[in-house]
């Protein structure tokens, strides 16, 4: 038994080393910009870069749009499946898992072929339309996490009774969805939302191939051309991811959504 505990300690310490050393290495590297002494110059340069501000703002906006569209798409669907069409549940679950099966690069390749400027639905023809296509691509990407989170939340409440109670009190469908169901699965939605944010904010493949000025392509550009700024950006990205996961823990009461995709 004692031997097992020593083994467990060794495994944990080795694991911690593997995970912590790159973070220390990155942080140390990001401080090296000024010759001979540590400084936060790299961060100052990054935060002062108008390109950083513009692309980060663009990706934040995309993430918010993704969350709104995703919630509007997933919550009524999951609710309706639970209430009226339980037979369709396996089909819907299978579809929501497909983005894990089909690599993002393949999905976006399909968009470029299907929605090119000479097609029936030329979504790559103008910048605004491509923005919308990128939002939809992110909704697709986030579908497994969002659906799973909302579905788990809906299972925990008594959807049928709540609906019937609201109906008896004379509520219409919009009222039921927005004033009864939505507040009850708020923590689940927030979990899905923060996870979506973490996935979307630094996404590279889709934004780059659809040619939109997002944070991911900006990171790539800096990574290819600068020395110290990429490390600073990596630390910033890590902090953003950490904040999202922390908020999930706060709102999701410690549930791990990604634990079961």
């Amino acid at each position, binding site marked *: 038994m004692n031997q097992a505990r020593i083994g*467990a300690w060794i495994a944990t310490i080795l694991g911690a080393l593997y995970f912590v050393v790159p973070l220390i*290495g*990155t942080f140390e590297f990001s401080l090296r910009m000024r010759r001979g002494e540590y400084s936060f110059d790299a961060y100052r340069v990054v935060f002062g870069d108008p390109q950083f501000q513009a692309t980060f703002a663009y990706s934040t906006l995309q993430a918010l749009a993704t969350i709104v569209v995703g919630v509007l798409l997933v919550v009524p669907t999951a609710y309706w499946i639970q209430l009226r069409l339980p037979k*369709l549940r396996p089909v819907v679950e299978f579809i929501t898992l497909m983005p894990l099966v089909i690599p993002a690069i*393949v999905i976006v390749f399909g968009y470029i072929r299907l929605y090119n400027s000479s097609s029936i639905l030329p979504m790559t023809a103008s910048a605004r339309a491509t923005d919308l296509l990128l939002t939809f691509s992110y909704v697709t990407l986030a579908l497994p996490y969002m659906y799973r989170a909302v579905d788990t939340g809906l299972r925990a409440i008594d959807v049928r009774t709540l609906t019937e109670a609201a109906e008896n009190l004379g509520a219409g469908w919009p009222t039921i969805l927005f004033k009864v169901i939505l507040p009850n699965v708020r923590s689940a939605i927030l979990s899905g939302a923060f996870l979506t944010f973490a996935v979307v904010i630094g996404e590279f493949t889709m934004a780059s191939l659809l040619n939109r000025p997002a944070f991911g392509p900006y990171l790539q550009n800096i*990574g290819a051309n600068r020395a110290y700024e990429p490390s600073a950006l990596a630390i910033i990205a890590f902090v953003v991811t950490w904040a999202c*996961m922390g908020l999930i823990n706060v709102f999701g009461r410690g549930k791990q959504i*990604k634990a079961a995709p």
Partner: protein
Amino acid sequence: MAQDIQTSPKPAGISLETSQKSWAWIGVSPFFIFALLFLILPTLDLMIGAFQDAQGGFTLQNLANLNTPSIKSAYWISLKVSVASALTGALFGFLLAYAVVLGGLPQWLRPTLMTFSGVASNFAGLPLAFAFIATLGRVGLVTVLLREFAGFDLYRTGFNLLSFWGLTLTYLYFQIPLMILIITPALDGLKREWREASEILGASRLQYWRHVALPILWPSILGTTLLLFANAFGAVATAYALTGSSLNIVTILLYAQIRGDVLHDQNLGYALALGMILITGVSNGAYIWLRSRSERWLR
């Protein structure tokens, strides 16, 4: 009381029910239209494109054209990196999860590890590549420290971050946490009674694992390994930032093809994508199947 409310308006309820039956489809139609437009049709369209020639006629030539040394080697390196990072990630992820769940370590380690795993499994893409360049690149912290204090030149040993091993080592940073996140609930599902029962029957620790625990866990372990495989196989950003185009893996080849038609054949690009769909499709299909098997034990 509740019964009364439900049964009293029965006649009206029936007509409502039947009319809602036909309307019920409307409720989920936005979802299906969305899935059709942005998930299913684009993928199907690519798969059809893989079987078409430039004029749109049916052909198998594109698939035959995949059989070139550079495309084959791209698939091969991708498969190697994905298999290596999936197997290693699954092994170390399992050991870490085991250590924290069953290893008798302090209580606070477990939530710490789980939270960190949630972060690290999402800390992929470009920032991850930057982190590893800053750590194990030619002027990275670990490389420099090893050279100056241990007199050990990592790059003399033939190690290169921009290589198969470098990529695998980097991928492990999100593979191990993903394994931990998925396998921990499975380890929790091992009931204390099973262990006690086997101990009472005189089983050794090894026998317990060999005949009880592992047979229950193995669908989860194998299934998660397949998920990790697909996860690595479809990854683009980390590899692209780490190696540029110096390491010829299939996602980077496909990326270059989409950007600039480097294969000089649109339909060959579709065939390349079809190959990826088939590979991740088979591994994920196996994952979903194994998962449904393993869930039987986790109730």
